[in-house]
């Protein structure tokens, strides 16, 4: 099964609607950035932008008054801040999985959705990076996160998973951004060459770096893309593993488990695919891209959600089993308390959304149903937020002695900060939809049957069924 083989030969269905041509793909994708934005875009953008303002206001208020404006208090020292951080980082993972892992596995169907998913990764990681930065309390000491000695000459502790996390997430952000930009260069050149006014020509021209589609460039370009995919694959697996080390290396019951790295990675992919699905179904109907993002894409993504959702469900069960099997009474208590204690509501929301709802996708009829896919993707987004909340808050809220027991109540600022981060995410995303080709134009063209240099030859053979033997020579009259 070579990557060069035509789609039909490897038994895949058409990945874009039949009759799509190079020109129609350029048109369909570019026109979104060229035509005036639909009214719906403006409504969504102004709403999201207002919430970005709410985020900035909440952060300003936090900086002015200190972390006391949040509900975090002993014994629950980490709450929504870290829940939001882990949730956002996790969402980012689907983008890298689609762009890198599926690329290495030669899954050509990813082509329609990878640009989109990579953009989502970058914006989700931006939202994630805010939270560790603002939760440190004395923000003027935020530079302690970086490997810089402080005023007493003491360096950060390189044995701490919190420092590993800084390296993992910032590397992830940088590499994802580079990967995204490299993928964009040929498409920015397409927009440059279509530009009707000089401002567009200058801005897209500047960003396209003078790309001229040269095959001597494509060779290095494709190698660069392949290497970036090969680098991103272990990177994405490492990022959520390192995030899970923040918990797993502590001696806190409920956190101190070896299952965390794979469990976090599976959950990250699960939540990320759900977010891609949510966004894609909206963009597909608003911008009328049903020819390029077909029901096959929806179905395949639902299958991945079914697989990762089942992995997550297995991890929940295994955690419970190991807690019992360990014989450690604190560990056992934490898990029984999760399912039956004061946070049982959160636990059962998590189980319903993450374990039960994706099981609907065993049915082909349900996983090709667009409204249902949308609803389930929202359920999974909610469920995965609750997963992180359950892991963090239920493990902390009852410390070893009952005098250190408490119950976490979010404050208004907790809520506005979280909603504000959603606002920032959607603001960036809507700007992306409007100004950047949201589907990889060059890549999508390369999977059309016409992109195969021997296309004409097969074509002739198929039509003149009796002329087998010598393959017909392709002629330039092929340009229909």
């Amino acid at each position, binding site marked *: 099964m070579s990557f060069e083989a035509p789609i039909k030969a490897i038994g895949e269905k058409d990945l874009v609607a039949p009759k799509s041509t190079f020109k129609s793909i350029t048109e369909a994708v570019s026109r979104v950035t060229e035509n005036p934005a639909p009214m719906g875009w403006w409504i969504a953008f102004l709403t999201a932008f207002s919430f970005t303002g709410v985020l900035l206001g909440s952060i300003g208020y936090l900086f002015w008054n200190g972390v006391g404006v949040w509900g975090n208090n002993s014994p629950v020292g980490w709450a929504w801040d870290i829940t939001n951080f882990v949730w956002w980082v996790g969402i980012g993972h689907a983008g890298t999985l689609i762009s890198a892992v599926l690329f290495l596995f030669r899954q050509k169907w990813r082509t329609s959705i990878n640009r989109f998913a990579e953009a989502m990764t970058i914006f989700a990681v931006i939202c994630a990076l805010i939270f560790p930065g603002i939760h440190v309390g004395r923000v003027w000491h935020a530079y302690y996160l970086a490997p810089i000695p402080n005023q007493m000459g003491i360096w950060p502790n390189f*044995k701490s998973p919190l420092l590993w996390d800084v390296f993992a997430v910032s590397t992830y952000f940088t590499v994802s951004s580079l990967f995204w930009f490299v993928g964009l260069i040929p498409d920015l050149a397409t927009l440059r060459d279509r530009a009707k006014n000089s401002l567009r020509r200058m801005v897209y021209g500047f960003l396209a770096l003078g790309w001229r*589609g040269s095959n001597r460039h494509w060779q290095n370009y494709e190698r660069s893309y392949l290497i*970036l995919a090969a680098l991103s694959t272990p990177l994405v697996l490492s990022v959520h593993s390192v995030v899970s080390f923040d918990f797993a290396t502590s001696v806190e019951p409920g956190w101190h488990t070896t299952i965390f790295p794979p469990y976090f990675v599976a959950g990250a992919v699960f939540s990320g695919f759900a977010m891609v699905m949510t966004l894609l179904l909206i963009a597909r109907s608003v911008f009328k891209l049903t020819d390029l993002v077909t029901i096959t894409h929806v179905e395949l993504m639902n299958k991945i959600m079914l697989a990762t959702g089942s992995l997550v469900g297995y991890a929940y069960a295994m955690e419970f089993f190991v807690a019992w099997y360990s014989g450690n009474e604190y560990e056992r208590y934490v898990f029984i308390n999760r399912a039956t204690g004061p946070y049982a509501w959160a636990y059962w929301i998590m189980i319903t959304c993450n374990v039960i709802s994706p099981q609907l996708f065993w049915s082909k009829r349900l996983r090709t149903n667009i409204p249902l896919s949308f609803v389930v993707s929202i359920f999974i987004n909610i469920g995965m937020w609750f997963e992180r909340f359950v892991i963090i808050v239920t493990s902390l809220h009852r410390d070893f002695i009952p005098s250190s027991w408490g119950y976490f109540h979010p404050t208004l600022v907790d809520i506005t900060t979280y909603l504000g981060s959603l606002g920032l995410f959607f603001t960036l995303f809507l700007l992306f939809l409007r100004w950047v080709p949201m589907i990889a134009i060059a890549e999508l063209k390369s999977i059309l049957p016409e992109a195969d240099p021997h296309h004409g030859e097969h074509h002739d053979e198929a039509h003149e069924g009796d002329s087998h033997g010598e393959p017909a020579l392709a002629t330039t009259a092929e340009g229909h």
Partner: protein
Amino acid sequence: MSVETTTVSVPEGRPALLLAEYETPGACMKAAAKLRDAGFTKFDTHTPFPVHGMDAAMGMGDSKLGWIVLVMGITGLMTGIALITYANGIDYPIIVGGKPAISIPAYVPVCFELTILLSAFGAVFGMFGLNQLPRHHHPIFESDRFKAATDDKFFVSVEYADPKFDADRTPELVASTHPNHIEIIEDTES
């Protein structure tokens, strides 16, 4: 199919490129193979997407990018080891959790991330270096038809600087590969 020949650009410039436009990737690739067989070295194809088999048709060797990435990756790994050893082992040793100041297992995550980070820099900026990008000014952009190279047309360009280039015979050779259109592009710099 008739081949029209047009010349663009200012008359006093010297000719830089012969540019031929094709309708399909297959036709473009056959033309490239013909130029390769005729011994040309300074020619290129311009396509909206990478065409598989074109590297062989143009007689190109393999990309050298992997070596750049390897060197950068090793640099990243060494940087990680040096940074941690110096910071926590030499400059200000701190004992945490009873572990030695220089504790190799704890190096793994940071060294891994720095290896990936610098390799990625190598893959991206190395690619820019090998391709000599950004380059916003190139004679080929003088052609209006060339705008379709990022849309749905396929181009072959031959440099006048190629030792095999002959002002009469080369256009004939290119015309024999059935392009839609041929034009001569003149260098407006100088």
